[in-house]
């Protein structure tokens, strides 16, 4: 789960990380009022779950409250990577002397959280890693012991020479690590961590990604979810316990299991089509899930054909068949449907489908080819 910059900053402030004040506005007038309260130059920053905000025009400096209002109105009208900007963070502009990068990522290779720090901050860290790897220090942390003081200090010395700044940075490392662990993060980033003209070390931006598997035991973090900042179809799918990702094609896919769902999308492409979505109905075979899945898919006007690919293990294919029958009785389909199912209770499922006027195949390649053909407006083979 993504959270907004202002939410991540709130979490870090509670840990004691020095962060300039900031407030969120949802209207240009709101932004103007906040800018007036701070006085001087402010930064107006889009709060949206997409990278590359700056390049997309979502981060601007405003010299006075009037300009803050004008810029906020432009930013609030933006869509960044398809997502509407509905909030801006207004914060006083800082007097920056240097910019560093500090991040923690859950690293698959070392199976540990890894600190990544670089004195070359403020820009894309992947670029720094690719072009000047010597400017990055990576330090894996054994979570059974936590971040040790000597480690925090080593990270600080990699960023600064001045001992006062090193100590300040080491303290921020501890605070960031603490926030990372308590909030169930898979990523926590301060970019940039700046030094000001007066020698303070301050976090100007913050990013946190939460491991979805943590949300059940962290209700306070789960409550930070901003559904208005997500694609509506994905919110609807999550609330129905489905994993759904919208794509640009026209073959709607309903599959059980993530690996098979990806392989099905790939096969659609292989036979010359384009998948409209990734949709995994999961392991259990509640007919209600199938009803919800069909509802979400048929709401996409791009979908020209629907493809079911079900391999029954735990999932009972007769449950899926019943779900298809119920769903299409409630909302008759306007596009053709191709059903492939095999495995647990396959014979019962086939019978249910036939009695209700559907045909089904047990062969994955055959079904995918047919769905691609139908989506193109051709006749089924």
């Amino acid at each position, binding site marked *: 789960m993504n959270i907004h910059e202002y939410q991540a900053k709130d979490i870090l402030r509670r840990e004691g990380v020095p962060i300039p004040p900031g407030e969120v506005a949802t209207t240009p007038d709101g932004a103007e009022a906040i800018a007036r309260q701070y006085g001087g130059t402010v930064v107006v920053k889009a709060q949206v779950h997409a990278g590359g905000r700056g390049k997309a025009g979502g981060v601007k400096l405003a010299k006075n409250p009037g300009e803050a209002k004008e810029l906020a109105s432009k930013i609030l009208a933006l869509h960044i990577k398809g997502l509407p900007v509905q909030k801006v963070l207004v914060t006083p502009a800082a007097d920056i002397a240097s910019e560093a990068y500090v991040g923690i990522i859950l690293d698959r290779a070392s199976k540990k959280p890894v600190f990544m720090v670089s004195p070359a901050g403020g820009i894309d860290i992947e670029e720094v890693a690719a072009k000047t790897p010597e400017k990055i220090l990576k330090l894996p942390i054994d979570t059974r012991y936590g971040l040790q003081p000597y480690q925090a200090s080593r990270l600080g010395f990699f960023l600064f020479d001045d001992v006062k700044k090193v100590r300040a940075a080491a303290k921020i490392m501890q605070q960031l690590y603490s926030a990372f662990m308590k909030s*169930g993060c898979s990523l926590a980033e301060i970019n940039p961590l700046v030094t000001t003209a007066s020698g303070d070390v301050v976090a100007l931006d913050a990013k946190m990604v939460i491991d979805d598997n943590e949300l059940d035991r962290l209700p306070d973090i789960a409550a930070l979810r901003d559904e208005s900042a997500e694609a509506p179809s994905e919110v609807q799918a999550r609330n129905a316990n489905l994993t759904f990702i919208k794509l640009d094609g026209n073959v709607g896919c309903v599959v059980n299991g993530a690996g098979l769902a990806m392989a099905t999308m790939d096969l659609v*492409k*292989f036979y010359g089509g384009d998948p409209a979505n990734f949709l995994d109905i999961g392991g259990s075979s509640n007919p209600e899930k199938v009803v919800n899945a069909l509802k979400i898919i048929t709401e996409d006007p791009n979908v020209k054909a629907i493809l079911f690919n079900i391999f029954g293990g735990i999932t009972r294919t007769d449950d899926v068949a019943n779900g298809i029958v119920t769903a299409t009785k409630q909302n008759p389909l306007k596009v053709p449907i191709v059903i492939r199912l095999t495995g647990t209770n396959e014979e019962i499922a086939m019978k249910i489908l036939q009695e209700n006027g559907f045909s089904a195949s047990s062969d994955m390649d055959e079904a995918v080819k047919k769905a691609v053909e139908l989506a193109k407006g051709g006749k089924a083979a």
Partner: protein
Amino acid sequence: MSIFIDKSSTVIVQGITGRDGSFHTKQMLEYGTRIVAGVTPGKGTLTFENAVPIFNTVADAVAATGANTSVIYVPPMFAADAILEAADAGVKLIVAITEGVPVLDMTRVYPFVKEKGARLIGPNCPGLISPGQSKVGIIPGRICTPGSVGVVSRSGTLTYEVVYQLTRAGLGQSTCVGIGGDPINGTNFIDCLAAFEADPNTKAVAMMGEIGGTDEQDAADFVKTKMKKPVVGFIAGQTAPPGRRMGHAGAIISGSAGTAAEKIAAFEAAGMGVAKRPIDFVELIKARM
């Protein structure tokens, strides 16, 4: 022969009285797996289906039965504790089926299991099956048949699809292992490839990877430098957009890393067969056996 489990494996079920645990224990018993004990704290006086004694702790279960394998069906927030308990009790093979285990929990569990000298498979995996001998987990027994193809995969139903196609074409399996779709798991592709290379009854390996991470690239390097047996690979997620978690927590392209194209290129560079579709495994493996 087989890898990791065979007909001598003696198995404990952690979470045997739960919905999933009880259902799959029946399936495993039906398949012939030697389930010797169940563990559910507080139910240590009961017997499951008049056949399997239940204990309060894994330590009690191991002391009474000498079991060497454990399979875990407990809810995600209790899975880390269950794995630690099994490793601490001396169980040597721990199979964690549970989906949704917090990844930070696994950062504590993984080094502990290693230090205890145990092997963990999963979490978030379908387990494993050595056809005709034993099944530990949830892979449907009827789609498998004994033979000499080793199967290893990050997925569940995609594994079933490929195994089903192999069985239909008369290609039986030595062992099928689902290593799971999480970013941190106990056993990776290389662990399984090394075991298949050492297993005299495995003649070829079918490997199903997916987007995210570098496990497949490392595996390709292992195939090239350490293996004599032929390996055929497949990568799911060629059409997946970057930055999105495709169901599995681990199936995500981060920035430009972990794409299907880069993994397929690694397979090709290692001289492996590359299946473009699941059905392609049949011909590619036949040609190499």
